[in-house]
């Protein structure tokens, strides 16, 4: 948030953001939560999972769910090619670190930003990605949509947990 009273040292603090593309749009997430970036490999389907949860993957011995961000953000006709990428992110939750993979079309860049670079997003209404947007970053004439990974994963798990609970009951 740009604010005149802000501490200059904090304002100058540089954050790194990983940017990736889905369709024509460029998105960004904070680098610290990125665990690894890996090529597409087939996943094991989870029965009765939401359509955008593709399944689970063996990540060095952990069973990690994989979410197709493209499907989540409303893309249709998605393809899984050798250049399709899974970004593995990790967020802290009440139950400890949780990891999940996000399928995107491709990874593009790492950019340095300061807090002032992030502009508040306009009200986008009820779009698929609107609920997870933290802000917009203009980068060399393009717009990078900064996503809130914790929000993304939190809603996903809340949905998964309640789905599991109702089916178990």
């Amino acid at each position, binding site marked *: 948030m740009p604010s005149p009273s802000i501490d200059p040292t904090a304002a100058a603090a540089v954050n790194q953001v990983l940017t990736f593309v889905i369709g024509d749009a460029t998105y960004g997430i904070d680098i610290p939560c990125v665990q690894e970036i890996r090529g597409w490999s087939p996943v094991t389907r*989870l*029965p009765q999972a939401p359509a955008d949860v593709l399944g689970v993957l063996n990540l060095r011995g952990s*069973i990690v769910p994989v979410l197709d961000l493209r499907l989540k953000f409303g893309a249709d006709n998605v393809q899984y090619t050798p250049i399709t990428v899974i970004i593995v992110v990790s967020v802290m939750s009440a139950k400890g670190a*949780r990891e999940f993979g996000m399928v995107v079309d491709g990874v593009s860049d790492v950019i340095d930003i300061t807090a002032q670079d992030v502009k508040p997003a306009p009200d986008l209404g009820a779009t698929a990605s609107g609920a997870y947007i933290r802000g917009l970053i203009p980068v060399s004439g393009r717009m990078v949509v900064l996503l809130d990974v914790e929000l993304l994963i939190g809603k996903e798990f809340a949905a998964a*947990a309640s789905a599991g609970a109702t089916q178990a009951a």
Partner: protein
Amino acid sequence: MTIDLTQFHDAFFDESFEALDSMESELLKLDTGSPDPESINTIFRVAHSIKGGGATFGFAEIASFTHSLETLLDEVRSKRLAVTQRICDLLLKSVDIMRAMLQAAKTKQPIAMQSVADLQFDIELVIVQRDNGIAASPSPTSGAADSSDATNTQSDSADEPRNIEWLIELRPGPSFFERGTDPVRIFRELGVLGALAVTAHLDALPAYQDLEPQRCYLSWSLTLLSDAPEAAIREIFEWLNADCELTVSTRNAPAGIDATPAAASDADAGGATPQIGASVVSAPRTATAPLLPVESAQPAQAAFANESGSIRVGVEKVDELINTVGELVITHAMLSQICHGISGPAAELLRSGMQQLERNMRQLQEGVMRVRMLPISVVFSRFPRMVRDLAQRLDKQVELKIIGETTELDKTVLEKIGDPLVHLVRNCIDHGIETAAARAAAGKNLTGTICLNASHRGGNIDIEVSDDGGGLNCERILAKARAAGLVDANDKLSDAEIQQLIFLPGFSTAEITTDLSGRGVGMDVVRRNVTDLGGKIEVYSARGQGSRFLITLPLTLAIVDGLSVAVGDQIYILPMMSTIESLRLAPSQVTSIAEGREVFAFRDEYLPIVRLYKIFDLTPRARALHEGLVVVVEGAGRRVGLFVDDLVGQQQVVIKSLETHYGRVSGISAATILGDGSVALILDVPDLIRNASLRAAA
């Protein structure tokens, strides 16, 4: 110097709980007529060490209570008080009270002082009554005799001739002070026994800047002139930890000769306490020289201090190890798959290397699994007490037989099987075993027998709870089930099926519901707990002859024996524990009933067919029943035929939680990683069966 003692609380609690368990089991073995002195000593030691720990760590209530208890036990030990049933009961109650106090202190809850005070009063009453009974002999330890009283008593008798000179060497381990041990306290107690000279050895003391304040650099040589027996001296050192080296030896020289250090007479004259304080800080004295040969002549004494060959390790450390070994197994499977595909001169070498690796890995895996294994006696040990108490309350004569208590199983399984077993044993006493009169009428031995039997069978453990009581009353069970609407009035059920009804929720046949059992939540909870552990429970009963409950559990929760089945492009693992048989059905064997529900005859019953691809919404390779396979599975008390494309193989798989990074998935209990690195889901058979019947009902 202040040390934060709270860091040792956990160890104190752990040790105290263990000590109480051993005290309880000794108490139960205690023969009221002629008690084994060794048992009494064990019980005394427990009270003594809890008192010491309680006082050191500032749990005044615990210390005060155990002090009274110790006084009582001392009376018993010195045979001034006979072991009666009343004392036995008091002591058992004390175990419960101490457990409750320790638990309260551990969880930082207030201690329920009323019950403590009541029991403490009872204990002191017993002591006082004894004192009144034999008023002639003064009792130095009864009542709240503190150490100064005891000192006076002993000083009075100090004029008696003492002709044994005890030479005591104490070499504490580095953690001596960390554990809150106060040598001055020990020496003071020794001083009560007779004239004491203490020499501190400061040679190991490092330069001031290298000094770690919590570490013990001192060792001591003590010379004690006393008529006390060796056991009495050793007892003062009782609650030293195992890394202390202690030797107690005698020099059979008469007292008062030149070798006696001058300090001894000082102590005699001036009272032990100030002298010791001075000696601790004084420089080494010459008294060490004659001690050394005596010490080397008795090598067995060193072993006394370190008898325990076990270490305490956090469970999470072991789990980490198990996980890593699980990774290793998966990586190995991956490598050996690659190995099969290559050729050339090096390939043969590689393959033999892989075989060697596999052998080592299996050993490692078994070894690590064994670390988590504990004997089932940990759970069984609570039953003698429970059976005794319950039988007393219900006025029944019951004998408990325990077989196979050394059988080992995984700690997690062990922790979770305790409650179901308690339920079963309670039921056996409450409902199973008849009163003595009824048994006499039936021509049975007046004392009923309950048998707990644990044994290994294959990769599983069988735990059997059986009694020779009345057995299950099938007519009554059926009547109750009908009344409760659990069974249709027209259904014809076999005895075995009727016996299964007791596992249904909301079922209880006890004519009088007691506070012990009969709330109708028992058996279905037992079964749920057992199935949650991946096991199963069966009941066998014959009217008038008793009943037998057989629980079959996997040895560990980390690995499961599984059957891998294919549906479409997915592989699923069926736990072996829940599979019965797999078969290929000819179309003629299958009968379609309403709305596409299919059943087939299996042995002497009709089982519904559950098509896995329909439940999981997959595209199968086999849709016609004769193209695929039907696996008969059992769970939630029912059997169904699970239709899959094919069987792939049978293997042990390492269980990985899905809930760590995702959540619960209906019909799936966990996941595993296959040899090629891909993930396979492990089916939750009871859940699948429940879901299938819900779907059918919908």
